[in-house]
């Protein structure tokens, strides 16, 4: 039972991080049709910059989170305005390849600045934990889950209540009609990239508190956005978070009960099965295609 509780808490925390990157992934995919392969690299940037901010500059968790969120957000907007803008509306695989290029460039910068040697993980969040049913749950996990919930809540307010969010919804449902009534697509797309990359950076910063060590392998977590997004539904933001939690939990349980090598297999295997049975995912809407 205590193993179950420990895996459950760890899985929820990991799932919240996956959900955060999956939300960013779904957001830019829905808006600009670009498959963001670089999500994991941006997570690594967030983690490393966060480690510099907290250890060298001595910032608190909240200050470093705010700094990472704004800095990475600006980077995301700049990336859209300089590069991605030219690729909106081009074929899916061209866009995927562009993001492969961006990912490699980002990786090169991170490697140059931080090297390939692992760094100690961050400890700006409260240490220790509390007991539930004989198992200790880390405060770090609780904070991460809370931040994930906050993200989903802020998204739902953003899309339902703000002018920008409503414009964005209009834009994704019908680009031409939205432009016809005065929505400025590039401005809004830049905002989605800003939010997505900012969240990826924040997810990286959070993960830097629970990772075994800080190194380049953080970037490979970006791939987890894919099963999370698919299981929840590739055009549903809420679904992305649920999918992320689902993948995080299944990975933790697979690693805990079956063995470490089943970790990747289970998440991605589930994704494969969902794709075969219900390609639009649990919360998504099916695609209609016309000649």
């Amino acid at each position, binding site marked *: 039972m205590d193993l179950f509780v420990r895996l459950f808490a760890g899985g929820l925390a990991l799932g919240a991080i996956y959900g955060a990157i999956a939300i960013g992934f779904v957001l830019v*995919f829905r808006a600009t049709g670009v*498959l963001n*392969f670089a999500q994991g690299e941006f997570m690594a940037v967030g983690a490393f910059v966060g480690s510099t901010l907290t250890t060298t500059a001595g910032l608190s968790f909240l200050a470093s989170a705010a700094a990472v969120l704004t800095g990475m957000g600006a980077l995301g907007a700049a990336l859209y305005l300089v*590069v991605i803008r*030219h*690729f909106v509306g081009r*074929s*899916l*695989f*061209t866009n*995927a*390849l*562009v993001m*492969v*290029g*961006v*990912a*490699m*460039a*980002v*990786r*090169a*910068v991170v*490697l*140059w600045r931080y090297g390939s040697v692992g760094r100690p993980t961050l400890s700006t969040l409260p240490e220790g934990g509390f007991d539930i049913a004989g198992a200790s749950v880390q405060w770090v996990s609780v904070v991460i889950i809370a931040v994930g919930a906050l993200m989903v809540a802020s998204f739902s307010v953003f899309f339902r209540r703000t002018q920008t969010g409503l414009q964005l919804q209009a834009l994704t449902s019908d680009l031409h009609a939205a432009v016809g009534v005065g929505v400025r697509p590039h401005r809004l797309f830049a905002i989605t990239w800003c939010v997505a990359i900012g969240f990826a950076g924040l997810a990286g910063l959070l993960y830097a508190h629970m990772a075994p060590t800080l190194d380049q392998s953080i970037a*490979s977590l970006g*791939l987890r956005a*894919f*099963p999370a997004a*698919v299981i929840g539904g*590739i055009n549903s933001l809420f679904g992305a978070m649920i999918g992320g939690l689902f993948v995080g939990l299944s990975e933790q349980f697979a690693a805990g009960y079956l063995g470490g*090598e*089943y970790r*990747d*297999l289970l998440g*991605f*295997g589930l*994704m*494969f099965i969902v*794709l*075969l049975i219900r*390609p639009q995912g649990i919360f998504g809407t099916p695609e209609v*295609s*016309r*000649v």
Partner: protein
Amino acid sequence: MNEATHLLRSRPGHLRPTSVAGRAVSFAVLIAFPFAVARVSLPMSFPVASLATVMNLALIAIVGAGAFNLLVGTAGQFSLAHAGFMASGAVIAAWVGEILGRSLAAALVASFVGGLAIGTVVGLPSVRLRGVYLLLSTIGVHFACVFLFKKFQIANFGYGSVYFEYPELPTWTGFAVGDDRTISSPFRWYWVLLPITLACCWVMGNLTRGAFGRGLVAVRDRDLSASLYGLNPAVTKLTVFALSAAFASLAGGLGAVFVGAVSEESYTIDVVLDFAVIIVVGGLGTVRGAVLGAGFFYLTPVVLDWLWRRVPPFDRWSMLQDHSNELTVGLFGVAIVVILLFFPGGLAAIRGPGLLRRVRGEIS
């Protein structure tokens, strides 16, 4: 000029077979290459000798990247499973070559046929899924293949790696130095890899240019419209997926035997991203693209490393030497973005002077 030749001539240059003159020049260069590597020395101690291994790696990568290009460039289906297919090719080659003790040729044929079978089975979703859904499903395939690779490795070779003895040439070829028929040096490997790669290029080139290739392009551009022209998109997609998996599997088997020891880390998703660099830089949708891209991909690190170490004024900045790897990765990343933005045809589409175009067969 009859209708058929007219149509042939009117095809864009990159879809035409290379001219006879072009082939003759290429063959001469390919045959002279391994001898030149051992004898020629270039100024500022350019590492000519290391080119032999680089060339062999490039030859193997041409098969894998060509397979990837057939699927991505020509058929427009993105797959991230190609590293997984290479892993299964390595497993099959290890099983046939090392455990059953058959010859290299048998191992490679088994890799190809096995890849064809695996590609057919896991390609079945490609009939049902399109675009982003297909791409994502292939990530699942990748992790399944790598998982099985690891299980196979631990069961038969232990935790280190899957390792291969030097393969031997069959006696009937008559090649032997004394009693030594092992394919051990880069020079010997070159003469094994070159014909295999050329044969693969020939097959993939004909697949791309022929009726099958045009069917692929039609299905890529709009599968529903293609079906109105009597093509069966489901069969076309499944066939190209299986063929691409087969060549990738062959490249995996070949690469594993060549390198001699492979593990799970040899088959990360990054292998597919490297293929993406190769085909974008070289040119999407043509075999020439895969060839030029593989050359670029394997030569760039050597040239850059030499530049940072030996060539003034770069050799003064030790920072460049220390970060040689990062500079190469960064250059590849920027190259992909710039090429997709400004030169979508890649290296294969560079027109060059009239003489070069005539040799290539673009002007007749």
